[in-house]
């Protein structure tokens, strides 16, 4: 398939990229890893006038530790996240979610920031970022940056706090050292988008759950944090019975899609089962 014709810009700094976005306005589309954008262009579902490729901007790449945070450059590919000991030690939930994304080829191309800004509700990065309470750093025209909490980042289907002319530059994840985590993903074939997935991280202390973080993938227009479940889990022993009771209402208030992979009621049921499994696995039970 051949996309419609477009102009191509490949800036080498964030400042240049922002300038290009400012120049071209809503004619411009940002290219990160291209794993969603390219199929969309090739199917001609979108015909931007200009594609701004972020692939040659070194400052958007890489993973570092800054105090209590793990900082991931927006253009860091999944494969680098997966290989990072800092991420697996301090934000293990993200490693586990990223490990389930598609296949190795896509994990070497697709980027964490690209996935977050694309905000496909079936994507696997949103839920762990939300569960771990990450902060998203957004650069705007003129170079000033602002920081948005993950809870405020996802606005709607394919819509985030990143506005026109802005770029996501960093994901800052508070360290969750010593937490257990699990990403329970439900798919029919291995390379598929999540039908439903559940991201869970727990800190077990003295045989009971001291803290819990739970977020859902593809149970609504955006990733959803299951705060009531998190609260209900605190103080519980990580047993099947206790966790089953604590997560029973996880699907309340969700609005999952209905499609060939499952109707909404089935997805609600799945969310309940998968949350129990995710929490138990995170707790090492």
């Amino acid at each position, binding site marked *: *398939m*051949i996309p*419609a*014709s477009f102009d191509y810009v490949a800036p080498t700094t964030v400042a240049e990229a922002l300038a290009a976005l400012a120049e071209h306005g809503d004619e411009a*589309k940002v290219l990160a890893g291209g794993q*969603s954008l390219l*199929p*969309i262009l090739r*199917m*001609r*579902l*979108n015909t931007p006038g200009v594609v701004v490729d972020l692939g040659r901007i070194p400052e958007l790449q890489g993973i570092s530790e800054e105090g209590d945070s793990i900082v991931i450059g927006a253009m860091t590919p999944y494969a680098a996240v997966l290989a990072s000991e800092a991420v697996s030690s301090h934000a293990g939930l993200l490693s586990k979610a990223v490990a389930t994304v598609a*296949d190795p080829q896509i994990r070497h191309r697709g980027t964490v920031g690209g996935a977050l800004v*694309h905000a*496909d*509700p*079936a994507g696997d990065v949103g839920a762990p970022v939300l569960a771990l309470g990450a902060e998203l750093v957004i650069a705007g025209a003129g170079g000033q940056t602002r920081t948005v909490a993950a809870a405020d980042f996802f606005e709607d*289907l*394919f819509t985030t706090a990143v506005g026109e002319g802005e770029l996501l530059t960093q994901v800052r994840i508070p360290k969750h050292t010593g937490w257990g985590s699990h990403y329970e993903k*439900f798919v*029919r*074939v*291995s*390379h*598929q*988008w999540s039908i439903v997935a559940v991201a869970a991280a727990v800190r077990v202390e003295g045989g009971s759950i001291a803290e819990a973080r739970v977020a859902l993938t*593809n149970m609504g227009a955006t990733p959803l944090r299951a705060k009531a479940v998190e609260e209900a889990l605190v103080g519980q022993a990580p047993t099947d019975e206790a966790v089953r009771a604590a997560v029973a209402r996880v699907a309340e208030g969700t609005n999952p*899609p*209905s*499609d*060939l*992979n*499952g*109707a909404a009621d*089935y997805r609600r*049921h*799945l969310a309940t*089962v*998968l949350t129990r499994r995710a929490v138990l696995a995170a707790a090492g039970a």
Partner: protein
Amino acid sequence: MTITEDAPTATGGNGTGEVGKARRRKEDQRLITGRTRWTDNITLPGMLHIAMVRSPYAHARITGIDTSAAKAARNVVGVFTGDDLKDIQGVNANAWPITPDQVTPNHLPMAVDRVACAGEIVACVVARSAAEARDAAELVDVDYEELPAVLDMKEALTDENLAHPDLGTNKSAFWKLDSKEAGTGGDVDEAIAKAREDGVVIEREYRQQRLIPAFMEPRSVVVDPTGEQITMWSATQVPHILRFLLAATTGVSESKIRVIAPDVGGGFGGKLQTTPEEFIAFAVGRQLGKPVKYTETRSESLLSGHHGRDQWQKLTLSATKDGTVTGFNVELLADLGAYVALVGGGVPVLGAWMFNSIYKFPAYRFSVQTILTNKTWVDAYRGAGRPEATYGIERMMDELANELGMDPLEVREKNWITHEEFPFTTVAGMTYDSGNYEAATARARELFGYDELRAEQRRRRESNDPVQLGIGVSTFTEMCGLAPSRVLGSLNYGAGGWEHAHIRMLPTGKVEVVTGTSPHGQGHETAWSQIVADRLGVPFEDIEVLHGDTQISHKGLDTYGSRSLVVGGEALVLAADKVVEKAKVIAAHMLEASADDLEFSGGRFGVKGTDKGLGIGEIATACFAAHNLPEGIEPGLDSEATYDPVNFSFPHGTHLCAMEVDTETGATKMRSYVAVDDVGVIINPLIVAGQEHGGLVQGIAQALWEGAEFDENGTLVTGSFVDYTLPTAADTISFVTDHTVSPSTTNTLGTKGVGEAGTIASTPAVVNAIVDAVRHLGVDDVPMPCTPERVWRAVQSGGADRQVESAGDAQPHFGAAAPNQDTPETEGGAQ
């Protein structure tokens, strides 16, 4: 390990021992690295590129086409509509009208005034580059007046809306085989009536969902009209049939057409079609007098390449209370889509001889009503009629076993043909050549650990384990080696079923083998070399197999229906034997010996009792020089042979599958799979294993993953690989495969065909296993594909919720809700 019941028949072994050797495929290096001639790799001087304009509507009248903007676009050379091409484009023919009164819509490659399915071509743009052609295609403005679309085959039967209003009906043909009328068995109605009184009657309705062949290489065609002949390269399985039909329907002399199928990347039946795209490229190339190329996108391939399966099966099986089947009545509805494809109507008919499978049913009736709808056309897909039949009967045998409280293997054994009974003429009138169902089943049972898994199943049921275990059985046979020409003639099929081979001994002693079969991934170059090496006693490496070009391989009927080895291989044997026969006369002359005193072994003619002799290569050289040939012998050492089979061959096998079913989520997981196949004598075990493993995955995919789904407007929802969930190696397990060998008695090599076996056998094995896992929860069926949701709903409802048809409002993943597309707010909810 391989169990050989009888010693394989002599394979003409000449001391090289090639037949039976697990050789790696000689063609693979170039195929895998892509350093070869795929059609899309072909670039000719001055070549132009075609982009198609396709209908977004399932059924519509074309009220106007404005091509002016497209014609004015950069580097556009021409824009053609159906009106422009109507006198030269030919017709997409149906080669197998199954009844004399079959209703067959006229299928023009490019629609002229009406489209009957989404994806039908209404115009094409020709430009200097593929990108410019695609861009200009977007500028063609077509006005449509939408017509009511017929999308459901059961609704189509009412003729309330018509897929083709001019035809007056959606019913294409009704075809029937009744054992009582044919004199091959008893009265099925009587058998069922009797069983209702004192036996058991099982009645079920099964859905064979629509599948997409999804070959690896998208279809591509290049037409070069600039030489003496018009040359067409095409990613096709059927270059010979394509050449014939191009000539027959366009009026161009057959001698002026050369068709080449270069290396072709898979087909699975999906490339046995003669396609609208090929005919349009042929017409456009002729019209412009320049080389043209068209290569489809994957989306175009999934939408407009023919689909497979798509049947409703209403099945009634009667039996005595001890499990002896007394009658089987099969009533099929088959959706042909918008047009009767090349052999589209005939595919379900092939099931007529297969629903009775390996069993001795005393009474049998098969009928099929073929139906036209406004969906993509349907034709052969790996197995073509036999997977559908095998599914129906093997599901029913499990249902019968359950009804009677018998083991599913036991109920099969009670009804199958025993090995002493071959050759056996079935209730459908076919004579099975050979087989040993007992041996294959015993071996499969042992490899599978049948009794241990049954014990585990009991334990899981007793402990109410959330993950239940099921065991599925599929004992199958199939018919290969299409086909005896007489039989095809009696069925009103438009061609014969013979195959042709040509062997040329070159002056240097090397060998060129020309085959009329047309490989597209099967490994013919390797297997054919092994056969000829053995037959002529020449090294494997000295043999080159040529194929797929009507100028080189001037006679042939191509590759489909597991025919290449069984029919084409036999032609090779005949041709090789002719070479040896001629060489022997020359050898006798050169050695000054009597031909009766010569023995041919290891590629050498030796004079018995002496050390005198001549190699076949030396004779080839002598034949080239022709200095000293016997009186009346022509120079050159080569031969041609055409083989018309006397019967089909009937491979069989026993497949056992264990599936774990997570009753909480409906997820299914394959635990183990054992396939013991009997494909007759094996030429190359490695190639056979490849066919078996690939075939298994394709059949398992029908059971678990694949299904072509249309929305209520007739748009294909599963229009990309994001939504058409094709499995990968990551989704499958390692299969255990083994063989028994019952050589075919109808050909010299004793081979039976293996191209489709795995696909035919595995689908019911998997579904039987899933149903077996949750039968105690009230479930007696899960429609295919057995998605987790369907399994879960079946378990939740105790079998009441069948969920056969999918939601009509489903959206593709990258579809209407993709970001920033034109109208996000109208379709926002679904993804």
